[in-house]
C-alpha cells in the first residue's frame, strides 16, 4: 500500500514536473524577429525552464531538445497589453461577471489580483492572436488600486501572476469633463472645487506615504524605534512614492495632462499616461518630462475639423516628439485586436518595426518589466509566437505559442471549441 503510494507520487512527479522543468526547446529555421536587435534569418531560439538561453544563427541544438521547425515562419515575442480588465471581467453587460471596479476614492490598498479569475474564459480566447502577457487594472474614483502582471496561460492565479503589484492605477482628479461623445464641456464651479479637494487629498496621501515609508525604514534600521501602526492605504503607496513601480495615470485634456505631469514631478513618481486624449497636442512637453504614453484612441472617430486620418497618425506625432509609447485596447474582449490596432498605424506613417515595438518592448520598458519581457533575448521569459506571417496582420495564422516556456494549446478556448463542435456537426435532417 505504502509502496504503491510512493510509486504513484513518483510517477506523478515524473509526469508533471519533468517536462516542465528540465525540457529544452529549440525553435529552428524561422525568421526570428527579436524586436530589440536585428531580425535573424534562419535563426534559432533555445529555451529551457521558461527562460531563453540562446538566440542566434548557426546554433547547435542541444542533445535531447525538442525541436520546433519554424522553417518559412516567423518567430515573434509575445505581445503585452496593459491597462486592461482581462481576467477580471467577462460579459460587460452583466455586473456579476465584472470584478474590476471597487467603491471608494483612494483605494491604494485594493489589489486587482484578488479579483483575478485564472479560469476566466476570455483569457484563452484573447491570447489567440499573440498577446501573451497583460497588466490588469482596477478602477475607483481616484486611486483604483494595485495592478498586476500576468501570463495568459496557466492553471491558477498563483501560477499565472508574474508581478503583483506591478503598478498603481490613479485617475488624475479632473475638473475637465469629457464625455465620450461630443466636445468637452467647461467644468462647473462645483466640479472645479471637487477636483481641487480631491487633488489636495491625493497629494496629502502621497506625502503621508513617503513619511510612512521612512518611518518603516527607520524602525528597521534602528533598534528601539517602533514601526508605525499598519495603514494599508499608505502601505500600498510605499513602492509608488519610492518610484519602484509606476503609476498608470489617467489624464485626458491638455490642462489635466500638464497638471498630471507636475504632479508626477512633485512626487518624484514613475508614470505612464493613459487615456491621454490630448497628449498629441503637447507631445513635446510630455517627451521633455520623460513620461511615456499608452495610446488607446486609434479607432476614435475624428471630427470634421481635423484630418480624417488623425487618430491613425497620432503615433507618428509621438514618435517625432520622442515620446515612448505603446498601444493598448481598453476592453478585455478586444485584447486580441491589439496587434491590428498597432498595424493600422503603419500605412499612416509608423514603421512596422516601431509598431511592433509599441506592443512588445515599449510597454515592457514603460512598466519596468523589460528585464523579463518584450523581446527575444537571452535571459528573458520564453513568451514566443510562431506564425506564418507578420504578427500585426489580421490574416496571419499563428502556428504555435509558448508562454513561460510552456507550449500553449491554441485550440483550448471556448471560441475554437465551439468552432470544432459546429463545424463537425453531423448532417442533420428532421425526422418526418
Amino acid at each position, binding site marked *: 500500500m505504502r509502496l504503491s503510494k510512493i510509486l504513484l507520487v513518483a510517477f506523478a512527479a515524473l509526469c508533471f514536473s519533468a517536462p516542465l522543468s528540465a525540457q529544452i526547446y529549440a525553435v529552428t529555421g524561422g525568421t526570428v524577429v527579436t524586436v530589440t536587435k536585428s531580425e535573424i534569418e534562419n535563426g534559432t531560439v533555445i529555451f529551457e525552464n521558461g527562460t531563453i538561453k540562446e538566440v542566434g544563427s548557426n546554433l547547435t541544438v542541444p542533445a535531447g531538445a525538442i525541436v520546433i521547425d519554424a522553417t518559412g515562419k516567423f518567430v515573434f515575442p509575445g505581445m503585452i497589453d496593459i491597462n486592461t480588465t482581462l481576467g477580471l471581467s*467577462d*460579459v*460587460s*453587460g*452583466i455586473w456579476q461577471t465584472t470584478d474590476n471596479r471597487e467603491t471608494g476614492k483612494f483605494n491604494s490598498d485594493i489589489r486587482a489580483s484578488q479579483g483575478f479569475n485564472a479560469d476566466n474564459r476570455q483569457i484563452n480566447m484573447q491570447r489567440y*492572436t499573440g498577446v501573451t502577457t497583460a497588466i490588469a487594472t482596477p478602477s475607483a474614483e481616484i486611486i483604483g488600486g494595485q495592478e498586476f502582471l500576468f501570463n495568459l496561460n496557466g492553471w491558477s492565479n498563483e501560477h499565472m501572476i508574474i508581478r503583483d503589484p506591478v503598478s498603481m492605477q490613479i485617475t488624475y482628479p479632473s475638473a475637465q469633463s469629457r464625455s465620450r461623445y461630443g466636445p468637452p464641456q467647461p467644468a462647473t464651479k462645483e466640479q472645479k472645487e471637487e477636483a481641487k479637494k480631491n487633488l489636495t487629498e491625493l497629494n496629502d496621501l502621497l506625502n503621508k506615504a513617503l513619511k510612512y515609508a521612512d518611518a518603516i525604514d527607520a524602525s528597521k534600521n534602528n533598534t528601539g524605534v517602533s514601526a508605525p501602526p499598519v495603514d494599508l492605504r499608505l502601505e500600498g503607496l510605499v513602492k509608488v512614492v519610492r518610484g519602484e513601480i509606476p503609476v498608470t495615470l489617467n489624464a485626458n485634456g*491638455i490642462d489635466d495632462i500638464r497638471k498630471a505631469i507636475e504632479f508626477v514631478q512633485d512626487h518624484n513618481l514613475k508614470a505612464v499616461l493613459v487615456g491621454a486624449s490630448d497628449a*498629441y*497636442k*503637447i507631445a*513635446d512637453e510630455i517627451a521633455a518630462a520623460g513620461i511615456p504614453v499608452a495610446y488607446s484612441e486609434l*479607432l476614435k*472617430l*475624428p*471630427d*470634421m475639423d*481635423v*484630418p*480624417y*486620418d*488623425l487618430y*491613425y*497618425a*497620432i503615433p*507618428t*506625432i509621438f514618435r517625432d516628439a520622442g515620446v515612448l509609447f505603446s498601444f493598448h485596447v481598453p476592453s478585455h*474582449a478586444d485584447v*486580441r*485586436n491589439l496587434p*491590428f490596432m498597432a*498595424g*493600422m498605424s*503603419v*500605412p*499612416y*506613417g509608423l514603421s*512596422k518595426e516601431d509598431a511592433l515595438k509599441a506592443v512588445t518592448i515599449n510597454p515592457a520598458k514603460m512598466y519596468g518589466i523589460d528585464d523579463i519581457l518584450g523581446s527575444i533575448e537571452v535571459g528573458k521569459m520564453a513568451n514566443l509566437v510562431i506564425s506564418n506571417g*507578420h504578427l*500585426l*496582420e*489580421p*490574416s*496571419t*495564422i499563428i502556428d504555435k505559442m509558448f508562454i513561460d516556456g510552456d507550449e500553449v494549446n491554441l485550440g483550448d478556448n*471556448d*471560441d*475554437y471549441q*465551439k*468552432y470544432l463542435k*459546429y*463545424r463537425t*456537426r453531423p*448532417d*442533420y435532417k428532421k425526422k418526418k
Partner: protein
Amino acid sequence: MRTIFSIQRITIVVACLLFSAFPLFAQSDLFITNAHIITGTGEEIDNGSIYIKDGKILAIGKDIAQPKDVTVVDAKGQWAMPGIIDEHSHMAMESFNEATSQNSAMVDITDVVRHDDYSLYRALASGVTTVHGFHGSANVIGGRDEVIKIKWGRDRETIIIENNPEGLKFALGENPIRGDSRYPNSRMGIEHILRNEFIRAQEYKKAWETYEAKKSGKIKPSNSYEKKFGPVAPKYDMQMETLVGVLKDEIRSHIHAYSAQEMTMFSRIGREFGFHPTSYEHVLEGYKVADELAEAGTVSSMFVDFWNYKVEASNAIPFGAALLNEKGVKVAIHSDSDDRVRRLQLDAAKTIRYGNMPRDEAFRTITYNAALGMRLEERIGLLKVGMDGDVAIFDGDPLSVFSKCVKTIIEGEIFFDRDKAMTTEKWIKEAKKANKISFEGGK
C-alpha cells in the same frame, strides 16, 4: 404605397432636373491603368486596366487600349478592388428608431438621411462606396431602408440610389424585448407579433385582391350595394402595404438576429407565409445553425469579431463567418458602426485567420455578397463589364493592415483622393509653416 413612393420619385427627378442636372447626367469616363485588380469574381488581374464609361465598366483586363479624352488614373503599384459595400449601417441619419410601436413598417429611413454627415466621408476615405442604411432594432418590425452611394459633396437626392425593391428591417432577440413596459418581453412574444402582423397583412392583401377582382368583374358583387355603386376599396394602410411587399418578396426582409433559434424561427415564418427572408443581420450565433441557414438560402450579413457586450452577444465566435461560408451560406461582413465601416477589409482579412476563408471569398464578404444581401448584385460588388464603375484603390493588398485606401471611385468619378485630401501629415506641415507647432492654436 406605389403612389406615395412614385410621387417621391417624381419629386426627386424634378429636383435633380432643376438643381443638379449636370452631375446626374455627367459623362464620367475614367481609365484606371497599371493596377493589380481584384475583380471579385475570383480572378485577379496583374497590371490591368479598367475603363469606366457613363458610370459603367465598359472594359476590364490586361490589354485595353487607353481611350482618348478620359481621366487617367495611374495605379502603378496599387491594388484596385470593387468599391466596399457596408451591408448594415445607421450612418448619416437624423434618427433611426421609431420604436413607439412594435410595427413601424410605415416609416422610411430615406426621409432622415443627412447627405453631409461626416461619417460618410470617413467611410469613403476607407474605400467604401455603398452603404445600406437601416432602421434600428428597438422594435420587432422596423422601418424601410435606404441605400447610399457615397458621392460626397452631392445633394441628398443624388446620393440615395434608385432602390427598387426596398427593404424592411425586422429585429429579434434582446433589443425589442428590452424594458418591461411594453409587449413583448420574450422571444415567444416576438414570434407572436410577427405571425399576427403577417396574418393581418395576408388579410389586407386578400381584401385588396378581392376589391380589384370585383372591380374588373372577375368576382361578382357581394350584395346589392356593390352591384349598384361598385366595390368599396379597403382602407389604405402603409404598414400593411410594406408587409404585403414582403409577403410578395417584392420588398426585401432584413432580420436582426443574434441567437441561433431566432434565425430558424424567422425561416419558419418565411416558409409559413410563403416568402423568402433576404438576409439575417449580425448572425452572432449563426454558426450553430449553418446547415439550416444554407438550406434557407438567406444571406448571413454579420460581424466577424464584435461581441460580448450583452448575453446574446457573448457566444459569438470569430470563426463564424468562415464556418458559415464553408457550409455554403453567402456571408457578408458589415459594420453597423461609423468606426468599423472604416476597416471592413480588415474584418474580411480576419476570416482567413479565423477559419481559413479563401482569399477571394474573403473579398466577396464586403463586396459581392453584401450586394446579394441588398439584391443589387447585378449592379455593384464586382469589377465586371456592365457593372457600376465603383472602385476602391489601395496602396497595397487591401486585406493587409499595412495598406490604406488612396482613391475611391463611384460610377467613374473620383470622390476621394488621398493626394488631395487633408491628411495629418499635411496638417502638421501647415501648422509648422504657420509657426503653430502646438495644436492649441498659436500658443
